[in-house]
């Protein structure tokens, strides 16, 4: 082991961190009195503190690695923590050979879900044995196949829960389609688990709530009967496990080889949900309750995924209730990222709204963030890029980047800027005008979400090519619903086929090999069916997908980073279908073609899923911005990142009330809360969430923050949900901000 001073000195070396921690950061690293509540503003080095605290436990206190659990929100973030730990530990080991045996691989590090899964497997917890863990797509498919709620068409019921149904209006005259019912059911079921709902209370409420409980119970039975577990129930199983004999062994050790769990460190705690809160508290049940939570309630963005900022805001109450102990609060308020004017701006922004001052919205007693970055200079670090008309803004952005940032060598590469938007889709109301302006001016952009997934050319062409091969007679078009109308999938598939046709007819795109593949496959497939002695012909859809991908234009498209990302996602979606053992091609009874039942299920289940539910982009993707490209990102994608110059547009938009906000209120009566919590109106929750979203956007900037908006867009008079500038005070903003 080494002493604390040497520890800090070693890590401050250039070969490790390259700088020393400030006094507050060190206090957070060294604190040893039980629960620690670390409120960390943007750019305050919170992950650095968490990593250093972990290493301090290992190298100074001699805590066994197996006694430490370190979790964060996404896989890339966990990987990043692991990388930093390794990197710094090696410097410490080089300095002191007694640390050679510190083995980081023994630390339990990862997302909470991955830790739950690993530990349940490791301890062979009986209810989790031989169980298949369903990912998001598989949970949808499983619900579609086995949950009774998917067949429930009661219009009143769905109107009651309309907020959970995607793209469906509560005044609709017909109940939502099966896939929409499934998606809504998954949202509701997951909330029941994530929010620690008391089912008895919900049942007693009667009406649609009681119906929901019955459907939920049937779903749980279906999961058990089919040896499946979804991610929400993985957490529930884990919480149960902690009270079992195996769980006790895991928490308290066995007195022999197995060490007790002594330290729990949680990053991004603002994105935790109530069941996770309970898990973390249960993990740290051992005196003196060494749980460290790190996060920033002002940067909570994931309510739509079940996260609840209340966990961060009320951590003191949770500790009081559970441990009868008050956590030690430390605020990391020094910002090492941004120019002081940017810090002043986002400080002013977050504190200027009355909605944010209401009790329970922000963590109590927070001070303003203090600028501490080495970035200095007397220039307007926060500027307002404005034009009278919104349609002139994209050209203005191009001019700023091309004629100033690049031409004047302010930046060395386009990847040092980012354009942040609420939606980066290439449509007129979203990023479309910006994308067009960049393309017209030959500014290369990196925007993997430029198209909604299903609208992108490469995805449509790939699916159309598959349809052409397995269903050359286009049987998909012949299916009718009960009213005699074409099934919902018909039109979209025809659109895909049209997209493919226009690509095949485009003389500038090489497609000869693809055409040949489709034609030859149409000749060969019936022969294969005829020659097969078994129903299954030994071929699955993903195999065909890879053969299509090997042909131009797909082989060329894969060289484009954004297209490549989407095409890889198609393979993962098919893997989900494959996991249900549904994608192996079967021949029909006469043995001369593909089985129509196989095709029907493919359209009815898989294709409808793609069409009706909309495929979400991966939130957890590891964002690697290629050099030479200007990144266009959603604010969610930019979370955790920083850029020298940040342009934020679509400032006139306001948030919409969704299921997450409504359920926050509606489920209040059924929640098994650890502490009393303020129930906020969904309208107010939307405003809070929008303010947090823009706070995250504004605090990404290091050297320059550029708000891109017309005078009308920064004016909230007509719409109070619009919160682009501090205090909705556009006059004051105009007075204080350099306009270009």
């Amino acid at each position: 082991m080494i002493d604390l001073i040497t520890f800090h000195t070693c890590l401050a070396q250039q070969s490790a961190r390259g700088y020393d921690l400030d006094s507050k950061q060190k206090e957070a690293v060294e604190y040893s009195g039980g629960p620690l509540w670390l409120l960390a503003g943007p750019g305050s080095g919170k992950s650095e503190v968490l990593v250093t605290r972990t290493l301090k436990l290992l190298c100074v206190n001699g805590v066994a690695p197996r006694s430490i659990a370190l979790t964060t929100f996404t896989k890339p973030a966990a990987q990043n923590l692991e990388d930093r730990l390794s990197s710094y530990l090696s410097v410490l080991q080089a300095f002191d050979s007694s640390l050679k045996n510190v083995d980081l691989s023994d630390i339990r590090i990862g997302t909470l879900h991955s830790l739950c899964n690993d530990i349940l497997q490791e301890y062979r917890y009986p209810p989790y044995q031989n169980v298949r863990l369903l990912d998001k797509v598989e949970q949808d498919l499983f619900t579609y196949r086995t949950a009774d709620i998917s067949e429930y068409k009661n219009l009143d019921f769905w109107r009651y829960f309309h907020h959970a149904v995607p793209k469906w209006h509560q005044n609709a005259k017909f109940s939502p389609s099966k896939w929409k019912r499934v998606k809504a059911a998954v949202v509701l079921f997951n909330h029941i688990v994530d929010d620690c709902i008391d089912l008895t209370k919900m049942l007693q409420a009667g009406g649609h709530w009681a119906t929901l409980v019955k459907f939920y119970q049937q779903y749980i039975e279906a999961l058990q009967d089919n040896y499946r577990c979804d991610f929400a129930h993985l957490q529930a199983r884990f919480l149960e496990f902690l009270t079992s004999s195996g769980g006790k062994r895991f928490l308290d050790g066995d007195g022999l080889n197995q060490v007790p769990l002594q330290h729990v460190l949680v990053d991004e705690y603002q994105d935790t949900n109530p069941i996770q809160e309970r898990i973390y508290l249960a993990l740290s049940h051992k005196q003196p309750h060494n749980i460290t939570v790190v996060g920033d309630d002002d940067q909570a963005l994931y309510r739509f995924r079940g996260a609840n900022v209340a966990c961060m805001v009320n951590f003191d109450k949770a500790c009081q209730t559970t441990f009868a102990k008050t956590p030690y609060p430390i605020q990391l308020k020094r910002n090492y990222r941004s120019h002081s004017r940017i810090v002043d701006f986002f400080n002013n922004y977050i504190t200027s709204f009355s909605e944010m001052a209401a009790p329970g919205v922000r963590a109590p007693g927070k001070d303003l963030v203090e600028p501490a970055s080495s970035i200095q200079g007397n220039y307007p670090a926060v500027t307002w890029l404005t034009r009278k008309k919104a349609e002139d803004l994209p050209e203005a952005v191009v001019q700023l980047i091309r004629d100033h940032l690049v031409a004047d060598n302010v930046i060395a590469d386009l990847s040092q800027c980012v354009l942040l938007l609420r939606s980066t889709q290439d449509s007129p109301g979203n990023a479309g005008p910006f994308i067009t302006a960049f393309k017209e001016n030959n500014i290369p952009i990196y925007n993997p979400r430029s198209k909604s997934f299903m609208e992108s050319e490469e995805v449509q062409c790939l699916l159309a090519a598959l349809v052409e091969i397995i269903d050359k007679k286009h049987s998909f078009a012949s299916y009718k619903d009960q009213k005699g109308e074409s099934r919902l999938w018909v039109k979209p598939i025809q659109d895909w086929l049209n997209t493919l046709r226009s690509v095949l007819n485009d003389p500038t795109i090489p497609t000869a090999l693809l055409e040949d593949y489709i034609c030859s496959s149409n000749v060969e497939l019936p022969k294969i069916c005829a020659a097969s002695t078994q129903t299954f012909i030994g071929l699955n859809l993903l195999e065909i997908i890879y053969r299509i991908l090997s042909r131009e234009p797909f082989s060329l498209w894969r060289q484009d980073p954004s297209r490549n990302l989407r095409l890889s996602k198609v393979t993962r979606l098919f893997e989900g279908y494959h996991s249900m053992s549904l994608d192996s091609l079967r021949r029909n009874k006469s043995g001369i073609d593909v089985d129509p039942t196989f095709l029907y299920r493919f359209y009815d289940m898989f294709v409808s899923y793609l069409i009706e539910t909309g495929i979400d982009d991966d939130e957890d993707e590891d964002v690697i911005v290629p050099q030479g490209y200007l990144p266009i990102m959603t604010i969610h994608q930019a979370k955790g990142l920083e850029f020298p110059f940040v342009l934020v547009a679509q400032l006139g938009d306001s948030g919409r009330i969704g299921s997450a906000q409504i359920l926050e209120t509606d489920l209040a009566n059924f929640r098994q809360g650890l502490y009393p919590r303020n129930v906020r109106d969904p309208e107010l929750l939307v405003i809070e969430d929008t303010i947090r979203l823009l706070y995250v956007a504004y605090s990404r900037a290091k050297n320059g923050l550029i708000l891109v908006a017309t005078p009308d867009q920064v004016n909230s008079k007509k719409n109070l949900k619009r919160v682009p500038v501090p205090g909705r005070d556009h006059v004051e903003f105009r007075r204080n901000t350099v306009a270009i």
Partner: protein
Amino acid sequence: MKKPFSGISVPLPTTPPVKRRYSITQDIVPFRRCARQYGTFNVHKYAPAYQTQTYFGTTLHQVLDRCHSHFHGIIDPATKGLLPDNGKILGDQDILDYFDELRIAEKLSTAPPTPPSDIVKYFVEVENGLKSRGIRAIKSDNRLQVVRILQYFNALEGPVLYPRVIDTEHRLQADRTNHILHGVVDLLVDPTTSAGVPEDYEMWDYKGSTRVGLNPKDLENYEFQMRVYAKLYELKHGVLPRRAILYFLNELDGPTCPSKQPVNALIEVSILPTEIDNAVIEFAKTVMQIEQARVTGNWQSAIPGDISEKDCAICDLRWDCNTPNGGKGVKLRYP
């Protein structure tokens, strides 16, 4: 237009702020085997149509790890000192019958039948875990083969090997200038059966393939891997291991359990200091190539002959690849 940022110049950061961790078996060896495969499946996360390769190796490794835990009483203290199944071997038909019963139970959504042996039980547990990661056997023959090999290993090597195992999944890692390298050694074995010291220990690594017919490049990669492990071992323990052993599990396969260790099953990799140094240099070179490919997006397919035809034959990317078939590529199948 006003130029608010005149006079400022922000340079591009020259080095990544954090060193990336590279695993020998998950990064370096796959990249050296075929950069295109590595880029597609490991970096860009394409989902392979089948994961036979992963299935075979992972199942063997994980079940053997459970066998060691069984012997050392880690899963259940009552099994301490006991060989799984006491070394007993089930016939192929018994195994297939159980697979059938299991399949029917799954189809009917009824409780799975009780496994007929410890090895089969561990195998099914591991297989279920792998299924949740989308890894499954391509044919039922593969499943039978895996269980057969596991039983043979258990019966043939278990009695002598298990008591000598000091550690399984022995993790090693070290810091290099631009990256962290890490690896997991399957077994640390003390051949002296005494309370030995690290310089007495042997590093064992299981390979889910045969030695006979192995592509020389693959063997070269395996040797490279063991030499890097030897370096990591030296960094951790201050001494080199006594021996580095590769165990080719598929050499055990056949209709009956071999009566003695097949001559091609086990090979000792030479770990002379100069060979180790060369391997470490190679490692660093490979890391640089991976980093470069990440920047350029250029993931080259393997040079024909450098990768086994068997690996190419099950690769989803083979249809537009010039590596298989001695560089001639493969004929596209329709559909």
